[in-house]
């Protein structure tokens, strides 16, 4: 059925259709609307979720961990500093192998304090052991949330899943959206049926015991193997999802990549802007293309390398600063993925859009222009630069 919803409303609606057992709820801009809409569903008796309003994000994630360990299906939503306050618990959730689902509405981290979009929050949590799936628009935010549980709850995976969307740009903009029937969603997601859980009285269980150095490493290897296994499961779930929705998803989306000579790698809503730029350049005969990263954890290393073996020059666009003095996190992963290629393209990194700084079609065109110049001259120039800041120097 067709509707018009904001990204937040779409995710809250997906939660309603799933009817999870527990929600750990604490508001923070721009994700506040998710627990807000959901509270109305609870109050109206449309779901039978235990809605636990707490005093911080540290507690909302603690609620989810306890609930999931008890055998319940737990969901949560947060942004920015809220995610930062959950930081300790994110690792606990992942290492206890509890497949919690978290809607992360991306927003810049303080400081300086800012409420607009970039990926500094979820990029900070990229090493926490959570699967991370990013949405370009409201439809993808809805779809990704529905796919999250079948991915995370698979026994070979058993990892928490963070579905991410761009704060305000996606979370608050109202778009046309295709919603699935609730029955279809429930059948697709199924029931949460863990083999062992705290409330299973026949089988007492201890979760999260102290791990001395004789055991910690083995458990981290288990987690790393689970993250590797997640890649195949994400694709399997996407294939099943296509059957019920007609919408197709991969680890990333290729746009005009078949014969692309100049390519961008980026994520989230900027992909929409970049597609417009690609279309414009294609009309002018420029072989431009785009790879939109959908799954950042696990990182689609080999698959991405294969696609990027084609173009002559690639710009990786990071919407968060890693302060590595060597480029952003998406750049580090992408350039590492390219290392095993025999013939590598030129690669540059552009950090842009921090704290909600706008990126327009013309900005993307400038990046392609820079790639064209690199191919023409054979000179990469500065590899790691910023775009969109006011400057005394003229720099893309």
């Amino acid at each position, binding site marked *: 059925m067709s509707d018009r919803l904001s990204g937040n409303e779409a995710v809250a609606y997906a939660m309603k259709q799933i009817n999870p057992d527990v929600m750990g709820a604490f508001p923070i801009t721009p994700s506040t609307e998710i627990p807000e809409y959901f509270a109305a569903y609870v109050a109206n008796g449309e779901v039978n979720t235990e809605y636990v309003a707490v005093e911080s994000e540290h507690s909302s994630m603690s609620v989810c961990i306890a609930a999931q360990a008890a055998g319940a299906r737990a969901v949560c939503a947060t942004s920015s500093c809220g995610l930062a306050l959950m930081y300790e618990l994110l690792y606990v959730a992942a290492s206890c192998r509890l497949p919690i689902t978290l809607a992360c509405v991306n927003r810049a981290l303080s400081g300086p304090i800012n409420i607009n979009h970039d990926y500094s929050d979820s990029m900070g949590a990229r090493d926490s052991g959570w699967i991370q799936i990013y949405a370009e628009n409201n439809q993808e935010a809805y779809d990704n949330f529905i796919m999250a549980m079948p991915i995370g709850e698979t026994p070979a995976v058993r990892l928490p899943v963070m579905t991410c969307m761009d704060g305000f740009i996606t979370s608050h903009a109202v778009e046309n959206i295709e919603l699935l029937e609730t029955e279809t969603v429930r059948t697709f997601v199924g029931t949460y049926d863990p083999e062992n859980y705290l409330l299973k009285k026949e089988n*007492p*269980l*201890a979760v*999260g015991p102290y791990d001395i150095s004789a*055991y910690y*490493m083995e*458990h981290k290897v*288990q987690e790393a193997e689970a993250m590797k296994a997640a890649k195949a499961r994400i694709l399997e779930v996407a294939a099943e999802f296509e059957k019920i929705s007609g919408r197709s998803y991969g680890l990333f989306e290729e746009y005009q990549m078949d014969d692309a000579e100049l390519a961008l790698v980026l994520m989230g809503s900027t992909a929409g802007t970049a597609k417009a730029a690609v279309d414009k350049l294609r009309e002018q005969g420029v072989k431009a293309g785009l790879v939109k990263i959908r799954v950042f954890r696990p990182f689609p290393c080999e698959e991405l390398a294969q696609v990027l073996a084609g173009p002559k020059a690639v710009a990786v666009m990071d919407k968060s600063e890693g302060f590595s003095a060597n480029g952003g996190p998406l750049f580090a992963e992408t350039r590492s993925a390219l290392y095993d290629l025999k013939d590598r393209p030129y690669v540059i990194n552009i950090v842009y859009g921090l704290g909600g700084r706008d990126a327009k079609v013309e900005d993307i065109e400038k990046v392609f222009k820079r790639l064209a110049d690199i191919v023409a001259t054979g000179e990469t120039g500065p590899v790691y630069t910023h775009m969109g800041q006011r400057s005394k120097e003229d720099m893309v």
Partner: protein
Amino acid sequence: MIRAKYINEQTPWQDLTPGGEIYEPGTAREFNTGTWRTDTPVFVVEACKHCMLCVPFCPDSAIPVKGGKRLDFDYMHCKGCGICAEVCPFPGAITMVSGGVPS
């Protein structure tokens, strides 16, 4: 499902439980934590009136009770904190000695 007693420092990662979950209760019984002790309580049964005050005060479960009488310390789990000796109302029933091994 692997029982805790079959897990040890030679177990490969493939055989460990996910996240270190333990699928049974009371597994602390299996582990000798008495080696942490630097002071040791010594029980003198003749001086003991079996008032049972020491039993609930023990922060571990190192004072076994049978038939209404306390038995000698379970040195496999006693950490030597000395709380039992402190709360005991009967002089000589529990004395603390230096060192981890009861003399």
